[in-house]
């Protein structure tokens, strides 16, 4: 059904049938006629720019209820749900009042994804230019305290909302679970990277990249179960030539 494709031709999070099913299920659950749920696609409304800031209305509305494949219900607040293209569509179509099935997604994984979205959602503006749409906005507004004249200032990686620290805790969970976050995406859209909705691809790959932030090569190998195929001599050579990159 073309109605489920966004203008860029990407498929939504769920298979086309899945979206129609979700809409129908949500519509049926909220006692709306199934016909209305299958109405023509809404063009991206211009009012979606208001989604930039969490609207008071959206926050007061009840959270969405996602149903994982194992039947467990996972709640996600509406500001957090904006990070998912499909959930945004459902909210815009007012089809998000009832339970939304999430086929092929185990509740453990869904829980992690929801936690991530809850943290980043309020700062995520899908309508913003790519530069502005950054969970770690650069240059926080407050002035840095003045420093002594001799000490060089560390390059501050600005994170005014404390998202990085939170992410460190978040990703210190069992890493095979996070592997499964990526796996979920792969399962949903099989092998074609180009058909995965961009926001979910961004989300999953960003989460994995964040896990590697600041880690030493040996830590990266451990987390991702990589075999070190450098000989000790080769590795020593590499590290020596680029010693600065391996300093603490």
């Amino acid at each position, binding site marked *: 059904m073309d109605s489920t494709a966004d203008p860029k031709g990407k498929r939504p999070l769920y298979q086309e049938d899945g979206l129609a099913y979700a809409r129908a299920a949500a519509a049926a659950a909220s006692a709306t006629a199934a016909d209305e749920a299958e109405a023509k696609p809404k063009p991206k409304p211009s009012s979606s720019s208001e989604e930039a800031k969490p609207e008071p209305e959206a926050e007061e509305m009840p959270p969405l209820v996602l149903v994982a494949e194992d039947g467990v219900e996972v709640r996600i607040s509406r500001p957090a749900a904006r990070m998912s293209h499909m959930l945004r569509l459902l909210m815009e179509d007012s089809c998000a009042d009832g339970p939304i099935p999430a086929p092929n997604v185990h509740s453990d994984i869904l829980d992690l994804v929801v936690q991530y979205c809850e943290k980043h959602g309020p700062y995520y503006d899908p309508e913003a230019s790519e530069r502005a749409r950054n969970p770690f906005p650069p240059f926080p507004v407050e002035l840095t305290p003045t420093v002594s004249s001799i000490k060089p200032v560390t390059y501050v990686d600005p994170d005014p909302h404390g998202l990085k620290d939170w992410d460190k805790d978040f990703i210190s969970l069992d890493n095979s679970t996070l592997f499964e976050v990526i796996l979920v995406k792969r399962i949903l859209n099989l092998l074609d990277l180009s058909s995965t909705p961009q926001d979910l691809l961004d989300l999953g790959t960003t989460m994995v*990249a964040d896990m590697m932030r600041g880690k030493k090569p040996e830590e990266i190998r451990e987390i991702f179960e990589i075999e070190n195929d450098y000989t000790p001599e080769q590795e020593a050579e590499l590290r020596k030539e680029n010693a600065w990159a391996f300093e603490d």
Partner: protein
Amino acid sequence: MSILCPFPTSPPAPPPMEDDDLLSEILLRLPPQPSSLPRASAACKRWRRLVSDPAFTRRFRRHHHRRNPTPLLGFFSQDAAGITFNPTMEPPDRVSPGRFTVLPEARVLSKILGCRHGLVLMFHQKLKRVLVWDPVTGDQRSLAVPHPLVFGTDKTPRGAVLRAAGDAHHFRVVLASCDRHDRQYTRAFACIYSSETRVWSDLISTLVPSEDYMTLSTMPAVLIGDSLYWIITGNWRAVLKFDLNMLSLAVIHLPVDKFACCKPWNITVMRAEGGGPGLLFVLDLTAQLWNRNTDSDGVASWVLTRTVELDKLLSLNSEERRFLMIIGFAEYNNAIFLQTDVSLFMVQLESLQFKKFPVPIIGRCYHPFESIYAAGI
């Protein structure tokens, strides 16, 4: 792998980490700090191979260029002995000076004209050639300059290098100068080189009615939109604009009374709020920010929009107050670089956040080098 087991209903997919395309998508999202890709390369040979692929490094650079402020890696300076790199980031991103070495011939006789988009532009005074150097990859391109007029009255052109929009691989070089035409006019010249076509343009020029001595400031050019801007100095003040699309030169005058006491080092073009060119002028340790407004009749004029007391903002000590110089403008981060006798500052103009670094060797001129370190090991 056991992690496939919880999903018996799905067809088996390759474990994500064995998919090169997916791994590239992940590595692309590592932070643009210098240590990111070297550390990833050290994990195993496969990762090193992926990261070393020029197509990947181009994607990495492009991805981060759009999304993040480009990190300031440090400053280049030069003296009779050559060009030195002074890193400013903390370990493990503190790139060692030895990592950025240019060929010996280029070190001693080349003058740095400016840095932009991770490229350094140098002018080889003896050979009359320009050199485009990418310190991160080590690539160097030496170009002969076909138009002697761009060397100007002091035999050294002013120049700017930039990466071509949309394709981080290619670059452009613009050289500009002024020369006396006759008693009433000075002529401003420019020419542009594109690495795609490997050709210099014809010489572009414009006449400036000026009986007075006029030259282009040696301070680096500023790129705003699709135009490069230099400050014209000498006995009066103006701004030279080179439109990169139209390949045309134009002169924007500055009101003499407002800018009478500005020197080449205390005035720079910057990006105004509307996105067009503005001016930053430091007078008595106060920064004046000027915008160019056009009224309903189409007449443009310079308007003072904001002042910032730099001595208070930066808590300058007595040594620093003696001499404050503008050494550059970070176009994407909208930040100015200032140098005093003992310190270097990067001040973000909107937020007034700043970073401070000690001057490694007093007396030298420093060129800020911002780059996305897109290279493995």
